[in-house]
């Protein structure tokens, strides 16, 4: 039950923040990708910088397994990059866009579901493709 509470809380907080930062607006994200949106770039850079400091403090004495480099890391990320440029959405943004009333995001969501399903189908057939599930390391 405790887990449900935190998943819900951070889901709500992440959705609200993304909506209020400009990441859900196609025009904003497009201007970021053509390198004309310094503020949006700074949002990501600030979060990254603070996370670096935060994780350094939290993980002082702990060794956390790091994400593994697989042969899918670069190819998969490049596919994701094209998809992001086309839809203005990453896996969380599509949902936030829907919440904001952008009905067209339903198509992106259906697409994401189909993409995840196809990939997971291919990994059950051939383990070579399996690159793990994010957050489960």
């Amino acid at each position, binding site marked *: 039950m405790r*887990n449900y509470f935190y998943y*819900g809380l*951070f*889901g709500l907080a*992440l*959705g609200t923040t993304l*909506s209020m*930062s*400009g990441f*859900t*607006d196609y*025009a*904003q994200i*497009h201007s970021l*990708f*053509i*390198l004309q949106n310094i503020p949006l770039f700074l949002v990501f850079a*600030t*979060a990254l910088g*603070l*996370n670096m400091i935060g*994780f350094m403090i939290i993980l002082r004495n702990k060794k*956390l397994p*790091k*994400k593994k*480099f*697989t042969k899918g*890391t*670069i*190819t998969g*990320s*490049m*596919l994701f*990059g094209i998809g*992001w*440029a*086309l*839809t203005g959405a*990453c896996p969380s943004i599509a949902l936030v*866009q829907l*919440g*904001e*009333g952008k009905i*067209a995001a339903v*198509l992106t969501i*259906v*697409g*994401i579901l*189909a*993409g*995840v*399903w196809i*990939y*997971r189908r291919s990994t059950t057939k051939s383990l070579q493709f399996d*690159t*793990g*599930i*994010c957050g*489960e*390391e």
Partner: protein
Amino acid sequence: MDIYLPWWAAGAALSFITLGFYITLHRPLGVSGSWARIVLWKNDRAIKQAEAPFQDNPKLFEDALMAATIEEFGEQKVLDFMNARNKHTGTDVETPTTTTSISPNRSPWTAHLFFLIMLIAGGVLGAYLRGGLVIQTTLGELHTSLFGTGIGSLMMLFFGGLMVGFGTQMAGGCTSGHGLSGFSRLAPASIIATFSFFGTAIAFSMAAHYLG
């Protein structure tokens, strides 16, 4: 509608969420992983079924371990080891309690579903705070001027989403898992992934903007 939080406040909030998620749930934030867990919801049931006999009777788990040990080393060797251990300590050593779960740190898939539903709720709240919810059938003027409004633009959204879904699974993470959580822990794979997806998105958008 176009008024956003100042960049430092939005960045600080995103960082607060990433770190808070890690501190409370003991795992890095990763939205693409939640999608996978929902699509693979049937696996949860299979794991539960496999674990059920051991949950009801933890002794079964120890018996299974013992059977496997005997099979590997032979009964005599195991007996010798047990005798030597009992002689050494003088008493019957209590076996440490073993966990009966294959995956003790795993959240049920419904928690991930709740997470994604609350992301939608966050969009509602965000739009409300920025001045009101507006129902739109498109992704805005710029998207329309670039891709139109016809069936072609709708297909573009579907296939774009397909690439986002397939690509993030193949890469093992997305903007949150690789970008916010992995990059800041200086995981080389995450740094490479982040440069790959941002780089590709920039190259693609530049081409669409200046050539298209």
